[in-house]
């Protein structure tokens, strides 16, 4: 099946004269149209945001250099140049979930990072829809339960020794596994049991023919079939992350005035809090610290104070992707995340994902 030069022409033709305003309408559109004939080999980038409205979402896109080409209600076609090539996205702003979706045929290796990721990292109001390993496993288990014939042909999985997942063999070892093979489902199951790993990337083929790759950043590479199943998964993840977004939304950074004529400026930071079921101490922190500024996470500690024995940590951190600054403090049981200058949902969710992957996969916010 050959890919049209510009698959968006086909999509726009189908959308002509229509307005897609709700997620229900959006799903229905892709249900009715055989999306695969219009746009295949697409990447769906799921995000979660704190934009106050559709207009502020559009404003954010424009600030980041996107041009709005077509508007069909909340479904829009946007584009940005990467070198000489126009990179287009079909984007749906979902008022109800506040979770913009981006669909594109652009390359995941360079074109998406140079355009969309740049927007995601530079805007404080949008984040990748991080899928924590435990949720990824649940997604996989639920899909298997409903579709026992499902095939997993590739997976990438990790084990961090700080994570409280049982393992039969050498649980103290950090592991990273990549597996190719049509028996991926069975192998993953076995490795989960024996080596205590959790999935980060999965290549799934459902009996209905739907075939896709899903990774922990919420990027779904669609290979075949209808988008409907994928939207269901995304909605499920959004709902599970809702309380995290709510907690982050309650954090703040505000300038207060003290004194009779408000002459003394004080800055008050209100944190969002992570509760750890598994207490961390200095030994665990040494391990965590190594992961923190790894290429994968790219958090840089500008300054830290660690009090040993009973453990107390206070640190100022830079998010190496977005450049955002934030403070964290921890007594081992809880981690408080204090925004600096503004609340950055992207840095916040990425930090939470870091905690889930490297410190405690059962950590909760609130």
């Amino acid at each position, binding site marked *: 099946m050959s890919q049209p030069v510009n698959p968006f022409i086909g999509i726009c033709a189908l959308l002509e004269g229509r307005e897609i305003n709700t997620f229900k309408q959006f799903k229905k559109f892709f249900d009715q149209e055989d999306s695969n004939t219009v746009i295949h080999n697409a990447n769906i980038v799921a995000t979660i945001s704190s934009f106050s409205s559709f207009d502020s979402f559009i404003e954010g896109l424009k600030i980041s250099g996107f041009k709005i080409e077509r508007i069909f209600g909340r479904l829009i076609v946007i584009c940005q140049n990467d070198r000489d090539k126009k990179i287009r996205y079909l984007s749906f702003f979902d008022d109800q979930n506040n979770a913009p979706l981006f669909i594109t045929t652009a390359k995941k290796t360079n074109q998406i990072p140079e355009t969309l990721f740049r927007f995601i990292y530079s805007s404080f109001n949008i984040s990748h829809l991080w899928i924590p390993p435990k949720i990824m496993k649940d997604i996989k288990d639920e899909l298997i339960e409903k579709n026992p014939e499902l095939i997993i042909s590739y997976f990438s999985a990790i084990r961090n020794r700080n994570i409280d997942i049982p393992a039969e063999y050498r649980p103290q070892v950090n592991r990273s596994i990549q597996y190719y093979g049509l028996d991926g489902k069975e192998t993953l199951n076995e490795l989960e049991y024996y080596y205590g790993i959790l999935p980060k990337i999965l290549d799934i083929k459902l009996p209905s023919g739907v075939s896709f790759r899903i990774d922990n950043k919420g990027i779904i590479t669609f290979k075949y079939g209808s988008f409907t199943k994928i939207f269901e998964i995304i909605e499920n993840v959004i709902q599970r992350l809702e309380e995290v977004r709510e907690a982050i939304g309650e954090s703040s950074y505000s300038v207060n005035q*003290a004194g009779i004529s408000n002459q003394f400026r004080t800055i008050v*930071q209100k*944190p969002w809090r992570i509760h750890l079921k598994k207490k961390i101490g200095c030994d665990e922190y040494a391990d965590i610290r190594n992961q923190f500024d790894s290429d994968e996470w790219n958090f840089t500690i*500008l*300054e830290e104070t660690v009090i040993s024995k*009973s453990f*107390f940590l*206070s640190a100022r951190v830079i998010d190496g992707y977005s450049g955002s*600054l934030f403070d964290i403090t921890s007594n081992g049981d809880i981690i*408080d995340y204090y925004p600096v200058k503004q609340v950055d949902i992207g840095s916040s969710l990425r930090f939470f994902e870091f905690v889930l992957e490297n410190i405690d996969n059962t950590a909760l916010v609130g």
Partner: protein
Amino acid sequence: MGDSITNFPSPKEEYDDFLKKCSNEERIILENLKEECKKFKVPSKKEVIIEEIDKNKRHDNLVNLCAQHFAQPDSIKKTGYQFYFAEPLIEFQNDGDSNKSFDLFLYNQKSHASIFIECKSSITKGLEPLTDVNKAKNLVEEKTEYLEQIIGEPIDKDKIEFVLCIYDKDTEKVFNAVEKHNVNNVNIWAYKPHSKIIQLHPKQHHKDQGLTDFLSDGFGYADLKFKYELPFLYTSHKYRLFILAIVGHCYRENLFGRSSSNPKIILKKHIIQVLKDKISLGVSQAKLNEIIEQLADDIIKHGLNYGLCEKNDENTILLSCRGNKIESVIKNIESKYFDKWALFKAEKECKNDAIKTYKEKALVLLNQTTIDDFPSQ
């Protein structure tokens, strides 16, 4: 090496002056002595600077923890005391040796009571911090009316209290000194790092019973629901100010804002703005401009001295480090600073040491008329 030593330093002669007079062979001897000394001194000095910065961090951390008690709306409501600003009367610090300012100023708008807090992260002798507090007390008493003008509210002189906030391990030696020397009006707040609370010394009380009760119960880390942003203070170590303000703010904003063609070029006015935004001070606007500009100059000078930056033009500096990634810049500047600081200090001490050893060896060797015993490279 057969020449005999002909030059001998005079009693107060410095290394560099003496070196100019030396023959080539004498110069080699002297320089070898200095280099030998540096082998041991440089690593030792590195320990010194790391400890010095760590101590400064611990101090600022303690100041932060104290201030955070009064960042919670509940505790402000309960005690009536509010954090106004840090380092009260710092503007008089350079007026003479006897002046020493406190770290925090709290004020109670209802009762016009005030509390001045001094934090100490480590104490050798119990009386030492009390002497400092006493000096700072004198300054407060002398400048009460000035402070009233600054805050625009009356300060009840009978309700001024002074606090020394210290680590719990130092509490008893300081409290013993308070009793022994009959020190009045200084309360001790003990920070208990393992319990993560600050409590008033059990044998002391504040004039305000509500405050006494609040501090006797102690205020724990887990109770914090808000905090004041005090990333650094006016008196923080210059190196920390360089990293936190110049790299952590100016460079980071240049790098990620992509507004500058070379993010390592830092505008002096950008540094001043960051310092003004982040440093808590209670001074008039004119004084604030004056002392913050001076502080920016001092931080830049410190950076220039240790090769962390160079002057680009009248209004900008250029960071001297490898790489652009924020992590590499921080690591590069950190290692450069520690290395250069240690080297500078070691060099200075080793010059004195080399002269001293040279004299001792020369006296022996002059009698032997040979210098073969001198260490060579």
